[in-house]
Structures are given as C-alpha cells and as structure tokens.
C-alpha cells in the first residue's frame, strides 16, 4: 500500500493555490535555463506527480468558441465524453477535477462541465451517440476521450478513423470546439501494434482537423518510465500507474486548453483589439519563460 504517498500526492494536487505559487518559485530557482542533453524540461505548472514535458502532453490548436464565450463573459459549457467521464459523485473523479482545474486556470470564468459516458457504442454508433449528446448539452467545448472502446472491440482502423474524423468535422461545423484525448498507456499494450495504431489514429485526426490533442498515452508512458518499480503481474504496478494517470488527466487536459487559448489568432479581425491573454493566470508567465518553445505536433 502506498497510502501515505498517495495522500501526499493527492494533497499536492488539491492545494493548487499553494502549489501554483510553489511551482512558480521552482520554475525560477531550480530549473536550468537550457535542459541538458536536449531533454525537454518538465512542465512545472503541473503538480509534481503529474509533471511531463509539454511535447509529451499535448498538441495545441485554437479554441474559437471558448474564446468567444470568454469574450462575452458568459459561462463556458464543457461536455466531457469518455470512459472516465461517468462516475460523478466523489470529489476525486475526473469531471469534478476538470471543472475545478479549469476554473482555477481561468479565474473569474464560470466553467460548467457536463459529463457523459458511452454505453457500448463504437465507431459510427459512437459518432451518432455523440451528436445526440452535443445536441442535448449544447456546449462550447467537447472534450472527447476517444479510442478506448474501439480498441477493446478491435474496430477496423479506417472505420474508426473516418467515423472520428466525420464527427470532429461535424462538431466544428456547428462552431463548437473539440479537444481530443487519446487512450491510456499500459505496459502490456506497449507492443500491441493495433492498439498503438488506434492511439496514432486519434493523433492523426487531431492534426488533420486542427484540434488540440491531449496525449494521455505519451504522458502516462513518460510517467511510467519514472515510476517503474518492476513489481510483478497481478500486483498492480500498472494499476497504480493507471490511478496516477486518472488523477493527472484533468490537470493535463486543463493545461492543453489553457495553452490552446493562448494561441494567437492568425486572422485578427481587428474588432477584438485585446487578445485573449487576459484570461491567463499569472503562473503561466513563469512557465513560459522557463520552458522551451511550443511543442511540435510530431510525435
């Protein structure tokens, strides 16, 4: 049992006000100006247990609908869909954490997270279900954890890819933002070619459609390399990693969204004089100075 450790980590995760200030301090004091051996610095705005380099964590893209909501000063409605999205109740579940983390990251903004789980639909069936969910919730932003059920059902890669692509296109066509989250990393699937192609497919669609991607897979792989204890089968090192991954997901997703909101508007319409940077919490400034330029979209 790693209970004391877990509770410390959990406390670290929850007490973000303190943690943010602390992280800021660390960013200026501890981290080297240039990471050694080309290794990328960890993203120090994340709580210690969840720290991964930015390039392992996300690819960024613009989030117009959320920006618009922020500009209009209305609450941001978020629809979180996916396998960890059900189970609201305890304060520690992903949707609750997501709402808390987003509100912390976007002070003075009311974020409303609605979460929905899929109930067995895959590929085009999931696409249809998602459309009905979007119609029901009418969100500004959809955060879609996608690929798990399709991977479990060993759905044909192209069928999965095209259904996902169509759905992302459809969501965008209704001026709603999308953030994709790819499935988890676990050692027993690291060499499963099919599984890694599903993960890659999500990435491919995100790149093609120009939507932000949270690389849950890469982030967890990075975390697993740090915390490998070589415990045996059935004893649960992979399950502990999974718990950690779940705890960190809300933070990781929030980070990708916050940074995506900072993306400059290429076609500045001129009417909106002030950039959306207003919404950015101060801690980002420290982080930006310390960490390398925006990560490339390549894996």
């Amino acid at each position, binding site marked *: 049992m790693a209970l004391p450790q877990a509770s410390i980590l959990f406390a670290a995760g929850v007490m973000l006000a303190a943690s943010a200030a602390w992280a800021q301090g660390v960013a200026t004091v501890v981290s080297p100006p240039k990471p050694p051996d080309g290794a990328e610095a960890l993203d120090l705005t994340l709580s210690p247990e969840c720290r991964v380099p930015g390039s392992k964590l996300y690819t960024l893209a613009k989030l117009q609908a959320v920006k618009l909501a922020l500009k209009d000063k209305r609450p941001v409605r978020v629809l979180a869909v996916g396998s960890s999205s059900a189970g609201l109740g305890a304060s520690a579940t992903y949707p609750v954490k997501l709402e808390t983390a987003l509100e912390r990251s976007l002070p003075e903004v009311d974020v409303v997270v609605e979460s929905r789980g899929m109930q067995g639909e895959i590929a085009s069936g999931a696409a249809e279900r998602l459309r*009905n969910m979007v119609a029901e919730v009418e969100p500004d932003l959809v955060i879609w954890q996608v690929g798990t059920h399709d991977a479990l059902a060993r759905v044909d890669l192209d069928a999965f890819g095209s259904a996902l692509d169509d759905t992302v296109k459809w969501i965008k066509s209704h001026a709603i933002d999308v953030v994709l989250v790819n*499935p988890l990393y676990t050692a027993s699937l690291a060499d499963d070619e099919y599984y890694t192609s599903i993960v890659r497919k999500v990435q491919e669609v995100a790149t093609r459609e120009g939507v932000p991607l949270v690389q849950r897979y890469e982030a967890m792989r990075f975390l697993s390399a740090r915390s490998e204890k070589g415990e045996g089968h059935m004893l649960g090192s992979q399950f502990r990693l999974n718990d950690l991954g779940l705890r960190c997901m809300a933070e990781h997703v929030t980070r990708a969204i916050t940074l995506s909101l900072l993306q400059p508007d290429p076609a500045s319409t001129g009417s909106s004089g002030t950039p959306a940077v207003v919404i950015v919490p101060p801690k980002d400034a420290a982080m930006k100075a310390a960490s390398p330029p925006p990560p490339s979209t390549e894996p």
Partner: protein
Amino acid sequence: MREPNAIDFWRGLALVTIFVNHIPGNTFERYTYSQYGISDAAELFVFLAGWSIGIATRGRDGTPEPRLKTVLRLLSRTIEVYRAQITTMAIALAMIAGTALLLDNPLLLEWHNAGGFFADPIQTMVGFVLLTHQLGFFNILPLYVVLLGIAPVFVLLARVSRVAALGLSFALYACSLVFEWNIPSWPGEGDWFFDPFCWQLLLVLGFVAQDWNRRSAWMRLWSTRLVPLGIVLVITGIVLSVWEIRPDPLMVPEPRLIFTFDKTYLSPARLIHFLGVLLAFQTLYAVLAPRLGPVVGYLAGLGRNSLAVFSVGSILSLAGQLVRFWTGGGVFVDLFVVGSGLFALGFTAWFVEWRSRKPRSSSPPV
C-alpha cells in the same frame, strides 16, 4: 412445454440478435437485421414482452384472471428480473476486473461505463443496487424492471378501456419526448440509456395489440391489408441505415427528440419503423416455420426462456468481447465466439426446461 409459436420464435430471434450485437465489432454483426433498419431488436423484445403479458394474464378462453393475481404475477416477475440484473452485473464487473488483472491491463477497467464502479465504488455500489448505475449493454433489464413495475396500472386500466390505457401510455410517451423526461443516472451524469417513460409505449402497444388481435376481425383484416405499407417502411429503413442518412440533431427544430433518431427516447422515427417491421413480417412465421426445420425449435426454445437466455447471453457476449480483445479478433475467433455462444444459449433454454420438468425431491437432510 408449449409448442413453437410465432411469439417465441421472434423473441428467440431478438435474443440471438441482441447477443450478436452485444459483441461490437464482430464479423457477424453485419448479418443481423439491426444493421438494416432504424429500430432494432430492443423494440421487438419489449413489444413481445407486452404481448406475452397479454397472454399470461388471461385464461385460454380469453377471460382475464383475477386482478390481484395479475398484480402479484407482475410483481413476482419484476423481482425475478431485478434479481437477474443484479446477478449479471455483479458477474460482469468481476469478469472485467478479473480479466484486467489477468492480462495486467487497466484499459479494460474503462470498459463501457465500468470505470465509474472501479474509480468510485462507494457511490456506485449504491447506484448499482438502485439500478441507476448501468454498464453498457447491461441496460435493458433495468428498463424491464420499471416496465413490469408499472405494467399493472396499464393492464388493469385496459380491462376497463383499452383506448384509455393506450391514451395514457401515448400521453406519457409524448410528454417525455417533448420535455425530455427520463430517469437520471447516479452516480455520473446523464440519464438511463433506455428511457422507461418512452419505452413503456411499446409494452402497452404489445399488450393491447395482443388483445385486439385476439378478438377483432377488423384489426386482423387491416393489419394484413397494410402489409405493403410495412414493406415500404422496411425498405426506407434499409436505405436510411445503409447510407447512414439521418437528421442532424443540431439542425432539427425543437422539440428535437421528435425529429432525431434517438434510441434512448425511442424517437418517433424508430417507433414508426418498428411498426412497419411488425406489419411487414407479421405473417412470415407461418411461411418460415415449415421450412426452417430445427431452427424454429431452437429459436422458440430461446424465446420460451427469455429471461434466463438473455441473462446468460449478456454474460456470454461480455466474455466474447474479452476473448476478442485478448486474441485480437478475426473471423475464426468470431466464428468460435458466436458459435459457442449460440450453443450455450440453446443449452441454457434446454437446461431451464429440464430443471422445471425434474420433480423436486423434498429438501434433503443437511
């Protein structure tokens, strides 16, 4: 044991279809009729459940049994179905957790809606017993529990006036569509996968249709005359589903559920399509029965023991999913999974009937 009949036959077919469709991604999925229409086996299953209530609550000559007996009969069935749901869910969760441990693979814990149970067991355990936490594919029996629970109202009302029962049922359906009434999921957000307030209409339709079909020559005449209409609806359904043509839920006018194709709320398109299927296939059993040989006996056997077969089928389709994931799938794995599943369903039906035939010995000394 009763002889094979149309109701048991179609119910058996619905059970087989549900079993195959609950192994998503498998090769044989595309050979089930669910892939070629707007409605699927769930509609058939619920409608036939209503029809069966009609048969069960009346004597052979059509005289209704005493009211109290009907209420108790439905109550007892509700309890049976509830017990089946709790048992199958518990086994399913253990199968998912066990396989995750065995394969050292936490991905499985995120299996359709199971994640909540493993991440958040305190609330979810309560939701599990209250039926408000449902796993993907394990959401039909909770619907059935509620439907049987409210069935006495409709059954007794129909004895006074069938039109009143149907009217009440339709009014509830229409209100639920317009106001999006549903039972909430808990823990977790969202609502039940099958909205009982909408799906009750099919149960009541089944129940009333059985009664009308039995006593009204006019009804029988018109249902045969409308066969061409049914065929047109079935063909429309095939076209729409093969080309995946469906309304964009964000483009349709309010109230949206009237226009979208939504399984949760049994949207009108699904209902109309199902009625079309019913009209088109109503006489088919008489044509098929002499030609299908042992298949008729097999399917009717499944239909006679639908609850046991459905429960075992749910467990087996989950096992099938796990086997497919573990082995990587493929046609031969699918053939094995579906083939052994169909055999096991047949065995289940036979076994249940064997048990009920076997004279019970008085309780043996412990």
